[in-house]
Protein backbone atom coordinates (compact mmCIF):
# COMPACT_ATOMS: atom_id res chain seq x y z
CA UNK A 1 0.00 0.00 0.00
CA UNK A 2 1.41 3.34 -1.05
CA UNK A 3 -0.52 5.06 1.76
CA UNK A 4 1.50 3.12 4.32
CA UNK A 5 4.74 4.40 2.79
CA UNK A 6 3.49 7.97 2.76
CA UNK A 7 2.41 7.57 6.38
CA UNK A 8 5.93 6.67 7.46
CA UNK A 9 7.36 9.86 5.99
CA UNK A 10 4.55 12.29 6.82
CA UNK A 11 5.42 13.35 10.37
CA UNK A 12 9.19 13.88 9.92
CA UNK A 13 8.58 15.72 6.63
CA UNK A 14 5.95 18.01 8.18
CA UNK A 15 8.29 18.89 11.06
CA UNK A 16 11.16 19.46 8.62
CA UNK A 17 9.06 21.70 6.36
CA UNK A 18 7.81 23.83 9.25
CA UNK A 19 11.33 24.47 10.53
CA UNK A 20 12.86 25.15 7.09
CA UNK A 21 10.02 27.49 6.13
CA UNK A 22 10.32 29.32 9.46
CA UNK A 23 14.08 29.76 8.93
CA UNK A 24 13.38 31.19 5.51
CA UNK A 25 10.94 33.66 7.06
CA UNK A 26 13.51 34.51 9.76
CA UNK A 27 11.27 33.37 12.61
CA UNK A 28 13.01 32.82 15.95
CA UNK A 29 12.10 29.15 15.97
CA UNK A 30 13.22 28.40 19.50
CA UNK A 31 11.35 31.34 21.08
CA UNK A 32 8.32 30.60 18.98
CA UNK A 33 8.36 26.95 20.02
CA UNK A 34 8.61 27.90 23.69
CA UNK A 35 5.67 30.31 23.41
CA UNK A 36 3.53 27.71 21.70
CA UNK A 37 4.56 25.04 24.17
CA UNK A 38 3.55 27.33 27.05
CA UNK A 39 0.13 27.77 25.49
CA UNK A 40 -0.07 24.02 24.96
CA UNK A 41 0.76 23.43 28.61
CA UNK A 42 -1.91 25.87 29.80
CA UNK A 43 -4.44 24.31 27.47
CA UNK A 44 -3.54 20.80 28.60
CA UNK A 45 -4.06 21.81 32.21
CA UNK A 46 -7.30 23.61 31.45
CA UNK A 47 -8.83 20.53 29.79
CA UNK A 48 -7.77 18.26 32.67
CA UNK A 49 -11.02 18.71 34.69
CA UNK A 50 -13.10 17.89 31.58
CA UNK A 51 -10.97 14.81 31.05
CA UNK A 52 -11.40 13.66 34.66
CA UNK A 53 -15.16 14.26 34.62
CA UNK A 54 -15.73 12.42 31.37
CA UNK A 55 -13.43 9.48 32.10
CA UNK A 56 -14.83 9.07 35.61
CA UNK A 57 -18.41 8.77 34.38
CA UNK A 58 -17.63 6.64 31.35
CA UNK A 59 -15.36 4.35 33.42
CA UNK A 60 -18.18 3.64 35.89
CA UNK A 61 -20.51 2.89 33.01
CA UNK A 62 -17.99 0.70 31.20
CA UNK A 63 -16.77 -1.26 34.24
CA UNK A 64 -20.38 -2.09 35.13
CA UNK A 65 -20.30 -4.19 31.93
CA UNK A 66 -23.78 -3.08 30.94
CA UNK A 67 -22.74 -2.29 27.37
CA UNK A 68 -20.96 -5.64 26.98
CA UNK A 69 -23.97 -7.45 28.43
CA UNK A 70 -26.36 -5.73 26.07
CA UNK A 71 -24.18 -6.33 23.03
CA UNK A 72 -23.56 -9.97 24.02
CA UNK A 73 -27.29 -10.54 23.78
CA UNK A 74 -27.13 -9.29 20.22
CA UNK A 75 -23.96 -11.24 19.41
CA UNK A 76 -25.59 -13.65 16.89
CA UNK A 77 -26.74 -10.71 14.76
CA UNK A 78 -23.31 -9.05 14.82
CA UNK A 79 -21.50 -12.34 14.20
CA UNK A 80 -23.68 -12.82 11.14
CA UNK A 81 -22.56 -9.49 9.66
CA UNK A 82 -18.97 -10.20 10.83
CA UNK A 83 -18.78 -7.29 13.29
CA UNK A 84 -16.84 -8.08 16.49
CA UNK A 85 -19.10 -7.07 19.42
CA UNK A 86 -16.01 -6.16 21.46
CA UNK A 87 -15.61 -2.89 19.55
CA UNK A 88 -19.24 -1.77 19.94
CA UNK A 89 -18.95 -0.19 23.43
CA UNK A 90 -16.14 1.93 22.01
CA UNK A 91 -18.36 2.89 19.07
CA UNK A 92 -21.01 4.12 21.52
CA UNK A 93 -18.53 6.13 23.61
CA UNK A 94 -16.60 7.60 20.65
CA UNK A 95 -18.99 10.55 19.98
CA UNK A 96 -19.26 11.40 23.69
CA UNK A 97 -15.69 11.36 24.95
CA UNK A 98 -12.58 11.10 22.81
CA UNK A 99 -10.46 10.41 25.87
CA UNK A 100 -12.70 7.62 27.14
CA UNK A 101 -12.80 5.98 23.73
CA UNK A 102 -9.03 6.41 23.60
CA UNK A 103 -8.80 4.52 26.88
CA UNK A 104 -11.08 1.77 25.53
CA UNK A 105 -8.91 1.58 22.43
CA UNK A 106 -5.87 1.02 24.66
CA UNK A 107 -7.77 -1.68 26.58
CA UNK A 108 -8.76 -3.43 23.35
CA UNK A 109 -5.17 -3.25 22.08
CA UNK A 110 -3.89 -4.69 25.37
CA UNK A 111 -6.46 -7.50 25.37
CA UNK A 112 -6.52 -8.51 21.72
CA UNK A 113 -3.12 -7.34 20.47
CA UNK A 114 -2.09 -4.20 18.64
CA UNK A 115 -2.07 -5.86 15.20
CA UNK A 116 -5.23 -7.91 15.70
CA UNK A 117 -8.41 -7.32 13.71
CA UNK A 118 -10.09 -5.76 16.77
CA UNK A 119 -7.02 -3.68 17.65
CA UNK A 120 -6.91 -2.26 14.15
CA UNK A 121 -10.64 -1.50 14.03
CA UNK A 122 -10.35 0.31 17.36
CA UNK A 123 -7.41 2.41 16.12
CA UNK A 124 -9.20 3.24 12.87
CA UNK A 125 -12.41 4.24 14.66
CA UNK A 126 -10.43 6.43 17.02
CA UNK A 127 -8.55 8.09 14.18
CA UNK A 128 -11.31 8.69 11.68
CA UNK A 129 -13.84 10.73 13.65
CA UNK A 130 -14.07 13.17 16.52
CA UNK A 131 -16.22 13.61 19.60
CA UNK A 132 -19.47 15.05 18.29
CA UNK A 133 -21.29 15.74 21.54
CA UNK A 134 -18.24 17.13 23.35
CA UNK A 135 -17.34 19.48 20.48
CA UNK A 136 -20.98 20.53 20.11
CA UNK A 137 -21.38 21.45 23.77
CA UNK A 138 -17.98 23.13 23.96
CA UNK A 139 -18.24 25.20 20.77
CA UNK A 140 -21.89 26.19 20.95
CA UNK A 141 -21.71 26.64 24.72
CA UNK A 142 -18.84 29.11 24.33
CA UNK A 143 -20.92 31.55 22.25
CA UNK A 144 -24.29 30.94 23.90
CA UNK A 145 -26.11 29.25 21.02
CA UNK A 146 -29.31 27.57 22.19
CA UNK A 147 -30.85 26.35 18.93
CA UNK A 148 -28.38 24.05 17.22
CA UNK A 149 -30.48 23.20 14.17
CA UNK A 150 -29.51 19.92 12.53
CA UNK A 151 -25.95 19.95 13.91
CA UNK A 152 -26.34 17.04 16.31
CA UNK A 153 -28.17 14.72 13.93
CA UNK A 154 -25.75 15.41 11.11
CA UNK A 155 -22.84 14.83 13.50
CA UNK A 156 -24.15 11.58 14.95
CA UNK A 157 -25.15 10.19 11.57
CA UNK A 158 -21.63 10.94 10.37
CA UNK A 159 -20.27 9.06 13.40
CA UNK A 160 -22.38 6.03 12.53
CA UNK A 161 -21.05 6.06 8.99
CA UNK A 162 -17.52 6.38 10.33
CA UNK A 163 -17.94 3.23 12.44
CA UNK A 164 -19.31 1.22 9.53
CA UNK A 165 -16.65 2.49 7.14
CA UNK A 166 -13.87 1.71 9.67
CA UNK A 167 -14.96 -1.90 10.04
CA UNK A 168 -15.33 -2.42 6.29
CA UNK A 169 -11.95 -0.80 5.52
CA UNK A 170 -10.03 -2.82 8.11
CA UNK A 171 -11.64 -6.02 6.78
CA UNK A 172 -10.69 -5.14 3.21
CA UNK A 173 -7.19 -3.72 3.77
CA UNK A 174 -5.92 -6.10 6.46
CA UNK A 175 -8.47 -8.91 6.01
Amino acid sequence: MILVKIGNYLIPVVVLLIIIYAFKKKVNVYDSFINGAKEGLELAISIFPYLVAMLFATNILLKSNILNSLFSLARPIFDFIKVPVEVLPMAIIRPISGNASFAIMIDLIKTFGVDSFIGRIAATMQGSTDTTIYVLSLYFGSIGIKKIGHAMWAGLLTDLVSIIVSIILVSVVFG
Partner: protein
Amino acid sequence: MIMMNKIWGVFIIIGILFSLFTGNIESLNNEIINSPGEILNIFLSMFPLMVVWSGLMNIAKDAGLLDKLSHLMTPLFNIIFPEIPKGHPALGYIASNLTINMLGIHNASTPFGLKAMQSLHELNEDKKKASRSMITFLVLNTSGVTIIATDIIAVRSLYGSINPTMILSTTIAATIITTIFGLIIDRIFYHIWRKK
Protein backbone atom coordinates in the same frame (compact mmCIF):
# COMPACT_ATOMS: atom_id res chain seq x y z
CA MET B 1 -24.14 21.99 27.81
CA ILE B 2 -27.57 20.79 28.97
CA MET B 3 -26.99 17.67 26.93
CA MET B 4 -23.63 17.05 28.59
CA ASN B 5 -25.10 17.36 32.10
CA LYS B 6 -27.73 14.75 31.33
CA ILE B 7 -25.35 12.29 29.70
CA TRP B 8 -22.80 12.64 32.50
CA GLY B 9 -25.33 12.00 35.27
CA VAL B 10 -27.10 9.18 33.44
CA PHE B 11 -23.81 7.34 32.82
CA ILE B 12 -22.99 7.30 36.53
CA ILE B 13 -26.51 6.32 37.61
CA ILE B 14 -26.82 3.48 35.09
CA GLY B 15 -23.28 2.29 35.81
CA ILE B 16 -23.73 2.14 39.59
CA LEU B 17 -27.25 0.67 39.44
CA PHE B 18 -26.20 -2.06 37.01
CA SER B 19 -23.14 -2.90 39.15
CA LEU B 20 -25.31 -3.15 42.29
CA PHE B 21 -27.86 -5.24 40.41
CA THR B 22 -25.26 -7.71 39.09
CA GLY B 23 -23.41 -7.87 42.44
CA ASN B 24 -20.34 -6.26 40.96
CA ILE B 25 -19.60 -4.17 44.07
CA GLU B 26 -15.89 -4.94 44.35
CA SER B 27 -15.07 -3.89 40.84
CA LEU B 28 -17.23 -0.79 41.27
CA ASN B 29 -15.34 0.15 44.44
CA ASN B 30 -12.04 -0.41 42.68
CA GLU B 31 -13.20 1.76 39.82
CA ILE B 32 -14.18 4.70 42.02
CA ILE B 33 -10.97 4.49 44.07
CA ASN B 34 -8.46 3.73 41.34
CA SER B 35 -9.86 5.52 38.31
CA PRO B 36 -8.49 8.99 39.20
CA GLY B 37 -4.96 7.55 39.19
CA GLU B 38 -5.59 5.86 35.86
CA ILE B 39 -6.92 9.12 34.45
CA LEU B 40 -3.77 10.92 35.56
CA ASN B 41 -1.68 8.31 33.74
CA ILE B 42 -3.64 8.86 30.54
CA PHE B 43 -3.18 12.59 30.93
CA LEU B 44 0.57 12.24 31.51
CA SER B 45 0.94 10.08 28.42
CA MET B 46 -0.87 12.50 26.09
CA PHE B 47 0.14 15.89 27.31
CA PRO B 48 3.85 16.02 26.32
CA LEU B 49 2.75 15.35 22.74
CA MET B 50 0.24 18.18 22.99
CA VAL B 51 2.91 20.57 24.24
CA VAL B 52 5.38 19.61 21.50
CA TRP B 53 2.83 20.05 18.73
CA SER B 54 1.54 23.32 20.15
CA GLY B 55 5.15 24.52 19.97
CA LEU B 56 5.59 23.35 16.38
CA MET B 57 2.22 24.84 15.39
CA ASN B 58 3.22 28.18 16.87
CA ILE B 59 6.32 28.18 14.65
CA ALA B 60 4.08 27.45 11.66
CA LYS B 61 1.78 30.31 12.69
CA ASP B 62 4.63 32.80 13.20
CA ALA B 63 6.09 31.87 9.83
CA GLY B 64 2.78 32.67 8.16
CA LEU B 65 2.31 29.07 7.13
CA LEU B 66 -1.24 28.95 8.52
CA ASP B 67 -2.29 32.08 6.56
CA LYS B 68 -0.86 30.51 3.46
CA LEU B 69 -2.90 27.45 4.18
CA SER B 70 -6.13 29.38 4.42
CA HIS B 71 -5.28 30.91 1.02
CA LEU B 72 -4.73 27.46 -0.43
CA MET B 73 -8.05 26.31 0.95
CA THR B 74 -10.01 29.26 -0.48
CA PRO B 75 -11.44 27.41 -3.51
CA LEU B 76 -12.59 24.60 -1.23
CA PHE B 77 -14.01 27.05 1.32
CA ASN B 78 -16.04 28.79 -1.40
CA ILE B 79 -17.88 25.52 -1.96
CA ILE B 80 -18.13 24.35 1.65
CA PHE B 81 -18.94 27.74 3.23
CA PRO B 82 -20.91 29.72 0.62
CA GLU B 83 -22.20 32.19 3.25
CA ILE B 84 -18.83 33.37 4.62
CA PRO B 85 -17.57 36.49 2.74
CA LYS B 86 -14.18 36.08 1.03
CA GLY B 87 -11.19 37.06 3.16
CA HIS B 88 -13.20 37.03 6.40
CA PRO B 89 -10.97 36.23 9.43
CA ALA B 90 -13.23 33.28 10.29
CA LEU B 91 -11.77 31.43 7.28
CA GLY B 92 -8.22 31.77 8.65
CA TYR B 93 -9.25 30.28 11.98
CA ILE B 94 -11.17 27.49 10.27
CA ALA B 95 -8.17 26.69 8.07
CA SER B 96 -5.85 26.59 11.07
CA ASN B 97 -8.26 24.46 13.06
CA LEU B 98 -8.70 21.98 10.21
CA THR B 99 -4.97 21.75 9.54
CA ILE B 100 -4.12 21.05 13.15
CA ASN B 101 -6.87 18.43 13.18
CA MET B 102 -5.38 16.91 10.05
CA LEU B 103 -2.11 16.54 11.92
CA GLY B 104 -4.00 14.65 14.60
CA ILE B 105 -3.38 17.09 17.44
CA HIS B 106 -7.04 17.55 18.30
CA ASN B 107 -6.43 19.15 21.67
CA ALA B 108 -4.23 21.83 20.11
CA SER B 109 -6.92 22.67 17.55
CA THR B 110 -9.53 23.59 20.16
CA PRO B 111 -8.47 27.25 20.66
CA PHE B 112 -8.64 27.84 16.89
CA GLY B 113 -12.05 26.16 16.76
CA LEU B 114 -13.37 28.43 19.51
CA LYS B 115 -11.99 31.51 17.75
CA ALA B 116 -13.57 30.38 14.48
CA MET B 117 -16.93 30.03 16.24
CA GLN B 118 -16.70 33.52 17.76
CA SER B 119 -15.81 34.93 14.38
CA LEU B 120 -18.74 33.14 12.72
CA HIS B 121 -20.98 34.43 15.49
CA GLU B 122 -20.22 38.01 14.43
CA LEU B 123 -21.71 37.19 11.03
CA ASN B 124 -24.69 35.50 12.66
CA GLU B 125 -28.01 37.39 12.54
CA ASP B 126 -29.94 35.39 15.11
CA LYS B 127 -27.61 35.23 18.12
CA LYS B 128 -29.48 32.33 19.76
CA LYS B 129 -29.56 30.14 16.68
CA ALA B 130 -26.68 28.34 15.01
CA SER B 131 -25.97 29.68 11.52
CA ARG B 132 -25.55 27.47 8.48
CA SER B 133 -21.78 28.01 8.39
CA MET B 134 -21.46 27.16 12.08
CA ILE B 135 -23.20 23.85 11.60
CA THR B 136 -21.08 22.99 8.58
CA PHE B 137 -17.93 23.84 10.55
CA LEU B 138 -19.11 21.64 13.41
CA VAL B 139 -19.87 18.72 11.12
CA LEU B 140 -16.44 19.12 9.58
CA ASN B 141 -14.95 19.14 13.07
CA THR B 142 -16.90 16.20 14.41
CA SER B 143 -16.16 14.10 11.36
CA GLY B 144 -12.54 14.78 12.33
CA VAL B 145 -10.48 15.21 9.19
CA THR B 146 -7.29 13.50 10.36
CA ILE B 147 -4.35 12.78 8.06
CA ILE B 148 -1.75 11.85 10.66
CA ALA B 149 -3.29 10.27 13.75
CA THR B 150 -0.30 11.14 15.94
CA ASP B 151 -1.68 9.87 19.25
CA ILE B 152 -2.79 6.55 17.78
CA ILE B 153 0.58 5.91 16.19
CA ALA B 154 2.18 6.64 19.56
CA VAL B 155 -0.03 4.08 21.29
CA ARG B 156 0.57 1.49 18.59
CA SER B 157 4.33 1.79 18.90
CA LEU B 158 4.06 1.70 22.70
CA TYR B 159 2.29 -1.68 22.48
CA GLY B 160 4.81 -3.15 20.07
CA SER B 161 3.06 -3.01 16.71
CA ILE B 162 5.13 -4.47 13.86
CA ASN B 163 4.39 -1.29 11.90
CA PRO B 164 2.70 1.48 13.92
CA THR B 165 2.07 3.83 11.00
CA MET B 166 0.40 1.11 8.92
CA ILE B 167 -2.91 2.16 10.48
CA LEU B 168 -2.75 5.42 8.49
CA SER B 169 -3.95 3.65 5.36
CA THR B 170 -7.33 2.90 6.95
CA THR B 171 -7.66 6.04 9.09
CA ILE B 172 -7.01 8.34 6.13
CA ALA B 173 -9.41 6.48 3.85
CA ALA B 174 -12.07 6.37 6.58
CA THR B 175 -11.71 10.05 7.44
CA ILE B 176 -12.05 11.12 3.80
CA ILE B 177 -15.15 9.00 3.20
CA THR B 178 -16.70 10.11 6.49
CA THR B 179 -16.03 13.81 5.88
CA ILE B 180 -17.51 13.77 2.39
CA PHE B 181 -20.55 11.95 3.73
CA GLY B 182 -20.85 14.47 6.60
CA LEU B 183 -20.80 17.43 4.22
CA ILE B 184 -23.44 15.85 1.97
CA ILE B 185 -25.66 15.06 4.98
CA ASP B 186 -25.20 18.64 6.20
CA ARG B 187 -26.34 20.00 2.81
CA ILE B 188 -29.36 17.70 2.67
CA PHE B 189 -30.39 18.44 6.27
CA TYR B 190 -29.95 22.16 5.67
CA HIS B 191 -32.46 22.09 2.83
CA ILE B 192 -34.91 19.89 4.76
CA TRP B 193 -34.69 22.00 7.95
CA ARG B 194 -35.13 25.24 6.01
CA LYS B 195 -38.46 24.08 4.58
CA LYS B 196 -39.82 23.33 8.04
